[in-house]
């Protein structure tokens, strides 16, 4: 006989498993199945084509993706780690301000960021042209594009991963460890290489794996900047556009294998015993920089870095004020006004994508919110066979590149299936909210897991002991305590869904085209101003969400842990 507790676990698991199997596992398997079909018959032809001599481009693209990703890891680390070390270890004027600015790249959605970089440093970019005019050169001194463009954008958008992990590792590092090393006679150099650095390694390795995965999956940067250069995520898109779904499936499988092996490697690495120790009362200890030359050098570097970091944001703002048709052959924009913003409200055609994005992101996040809480609760607070498997299943959409998630959904739902209630979803409004739901589920589950793990089991037991039934406890105790954490995760998912590009570009229809697609359209029509205005909406949304999270939810979440 099952006791009440086991029954409840089962009841909780049934919907969770149904949804995960229907919208994560089935589409993934469907893609795998499709990759073995050639002209409708079962064969290995697609893989032969991929690795064979016939289509060199594919293998070349895979190889390009790998080395671009490796270089992205290297550059991001070279920027992020020293920056974290300087901001966490030295005290100089403006330190706190600079360290807040350092994470600004994450405020820029990838497509919008790439766009800003194009107009800042590209062929017609403001900076190269400004230098050209200032120095009276005959040609622009430099321009980004192709490989260099992708790498620069990657370094800019991905170094915060290193910066944040290294910062938190340095913050958690007990200063007495370094003091102990000094006390035992090690000089500063030795202390850094033999004590500090080894303690940072777990975080750095985790960040490296993450950046590698993110840049393998990167779509927007190659999409806008690559030119003739091929990477695998882009190849999938081209195959799909050319109608070769079987090849797209094959490419997806190969990209998935790379990504999932990294996910598994990361899980293995993180589950290893790490060196973190619970020591009480860690106090920040920063050395005051007293040498005035050094001090002001640091401040100067800080200011320069700040300018470089914020230039894309400023560019975006500037461009968004350029009305349509006023910046065509001129080197610099000449007219500025708020037309692009006012048009949002008086031109339905312009407003429509914003409305679409907001509605679809809202629907997806509603689903993610409810489903995420139950999934996370089952994963953290319940014991059952196959828990590890379920955990991996939840994390698959996170490990899979967005392009692959999009392909999976296309292949799964371009024919009727029980999970779409016998309907074809591709080409309808609902496919995009579903894609956003699948894409951002892991994010919410992860953030909910984090708060639920902090919630001691005894809290629930206390409520039960006082006579509360399980659901009452769940509603009145568990939900209110974890709500701030879950909400901040969901809000983050919301803003990302609003800006989501790779799945949108594969799945949108004219009726539900989201902001990111309209940005692309406006860019094609050389209406940079409107595209930038759309970008500013996203930046504004992200800023609001971050403010809410840190001001209201952050405070509350901290209090609930106290």
């Amino acid at each position, binding site marked *: 006989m099952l*006791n009440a507790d086991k029954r409840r676990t089962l009841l909780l698991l049934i919907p969770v498993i149904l949804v995960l199997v229907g919208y994560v596992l089935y589409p993934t398997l469907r893609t795998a199945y499709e990759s073995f079909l050639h002209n409708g018959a079962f064969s290995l032809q697609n893989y032969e084509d991929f690795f064979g001599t016939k289509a060199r481009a594919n293998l070349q693209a895979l190889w390009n993706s790998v080395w671009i990703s490796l270089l992205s890891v290297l550059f991001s680390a070279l920027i992020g780690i020293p920056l974290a070390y300087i901001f966490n270890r030295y005290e100089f004027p403006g330190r706190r301000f600079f360290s807040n600015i350092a994470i600004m790249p994450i405020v820029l959605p990838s497509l919008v960021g790439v766009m800003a970089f194009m107009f800042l440093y590209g062929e017609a970019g403001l900076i190269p042209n400004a230098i050209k005019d200032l120095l009276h050169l005959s040609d622009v001194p430099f321009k980004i594009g192709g490989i260099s463009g992708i790498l620069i954008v990657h370094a800019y958008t991905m170094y915060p991963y290193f910066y944040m992990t290294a910062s938190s590792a340095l913050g958690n590092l007990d200063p007495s460890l370094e003091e102990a090393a000094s006390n035992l006679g090690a000089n500063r150099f030795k202390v850094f290489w033999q004590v500090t650095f080894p303690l940072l390694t777990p975080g750095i390795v985790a960040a490296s794996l993450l950046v590698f995965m993110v840049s393998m999956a990167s779509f927007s940067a190659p999409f806008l900047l690559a030119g003739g250069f091929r990477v695998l995520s882009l190849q999938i898109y081209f195959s799909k556009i050319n109608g070769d779904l079987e090849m797209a499936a094959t490419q997806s499988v190969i990209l998935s294998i790379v990504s999932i092996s990294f996910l598994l490697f990361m899980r293995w690495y993180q589950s290893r015993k790490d060196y973190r120790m619970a020591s009480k009362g860690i106090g920040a200890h920063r050395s005051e920089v007293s040498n005035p030359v050094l001090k002001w050098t640091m401040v100067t570097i800080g200011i320069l870095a700040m300018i470089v970091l914020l230039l894309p944001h400023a560019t975006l703002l500037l461009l968004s004020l350029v009305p349509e048709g006023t910046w065509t052959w001129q080197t610099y924009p000449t007219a500025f006004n708020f037309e692009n913003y006012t048009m949002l409200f008086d031109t339905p055609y312009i407003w429509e994508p914003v409305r679409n994005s907001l509605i679809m992101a809202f629907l997806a996040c509603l689903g993610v919110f409810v489903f995420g809480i139950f999934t996370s609760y089952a994963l953290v607070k319940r014991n059952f066979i196959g828990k590890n498997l379920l955990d991996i299943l939840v994390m698959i959409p996170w490990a899979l590149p967005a392009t692959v998630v999009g392909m999976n959904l296309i292949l799964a739902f371009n024919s009727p299936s029980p999970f779409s209630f016998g309907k074809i979803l591709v080409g309808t409004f609902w496919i995009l909210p579903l894609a956003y739901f699948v894409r951002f589920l892991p994010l919410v589950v992860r953030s909910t897991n984090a708060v639920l793990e902090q919630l*001691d089991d*005894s809290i629930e037991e*206390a409520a039960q002991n006082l006579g509360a039934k399980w659901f009452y406890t769940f509603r009145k105790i568990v939900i209110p305590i974890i709500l701030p954490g879950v909400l901040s995760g969901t809000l983050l998912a919301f803003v990302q869904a609003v800006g989501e590009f790779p799945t949108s570009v594969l799945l949108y229809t004219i009726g539900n085209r989201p902001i990111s697609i309209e940005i692309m359209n406006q860019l094609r029509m050389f209406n940079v101003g409107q595209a930038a205005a759309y970008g500013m909406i996203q930046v504004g949304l992200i800023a609001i969400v971050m403010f809410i999270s840190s001001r209201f939810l952050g405070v509350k979440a901290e209090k609930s842990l106290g």
Partner: protein
Amino acid sequence: MNQMSIVHLSAITKQFGKVTAVEGLDLLIKEGEFFTFLGPSGCGKTTTLRMVAGFYYPTKGVVKFNDRDMTTVPPEKRNTGMVFQNYALFPHMTVFENVAFGLKVRKLNKAETKTRVTDVLKKVRLDQYADRQVSQLSGGQQQRVALARAIVIEPDILLLDEPLSNLDARLRDEMRAEILRLQKEYKITTIYVTHDQVEALTMSDRIAVFNFGRCQQVGTPTEIYNEPVNDFVAEFIGETNLLPVTEVQGGGEKRTYRSEALGREVTVNDTPLNIARYGEVDELRMSIRPEAVEVSVNQFSGPNVYPGTVKNVQFTGAAVHTYVEMNEGLTLVGTALNQGPSTYLREGADVFVRLPEDQIRIVPKAGV
């Protein structure tokens, strides 16, 4: 006002996978009794408490409250009030809301809830703090909220899981008195789990000593201390000198044992107070409390007097411990109340040690 409860555990065994946490436990906890589970960590005491609360169901055996079989009744239907080691206060509620939670679940009306919560908060002297967030309270105050929250529902049984282990020493003394006062006032059957023998001895009506998932002995504090049933109980409760012995000769009013470590024979009164029950095959131990050991530079008359050398004199304030080396492998401790510097023995002094025959207890070695 409370309906009081008897807790009856019979033949309880609890296994987690292959690990047996509690084995063959029989306990009867009387109405209104303050009953303590005492033992080292991992001995099964908390597991047993959680089976009473309903968080675990026993693998074998029956849990009864009065005559009701509660073995598989879910925790929310048991009407027990539990105080958790970490207090488990609801962090998003005020003091008042925390205490009112159990009453709200029981659907009491607002006015009645308010009176009862205010009442119990007064009892734990927290009426001033009703509207505070629990995170703003000190450890001792949080502890009192947890206690009030458990008591206000008028539980049949009060369960306390190491409630004082997170408090500092002075606060612990204060809370000990507070818990006892409330328990006597409400006359609730109480089960108290602790690994602290001082807490157990000072608070309990009766104690059950646990080790390795088995209950070693049940008795009043004086029984447990003075008449331990085996060497584990003797050693775990209080300090003692413990020596392996073998029986030489019985009969009459005295029995004689031989200690290899001492190299001599020891005479013990043949009374139940001095000799625990043991079987033919049991290994035996002799236990004598330090406060019973007499040490002097002068020769004693009577049996059980052995020469030794003072190794160390430890002054603790109220008491003085004298460590006497009997031979290379054996040191005995004698404890006396502080009588002033003139009575302290000099280190290195040759002394005599007397083990009074009415103070020695012979116990079997605990089976595992």
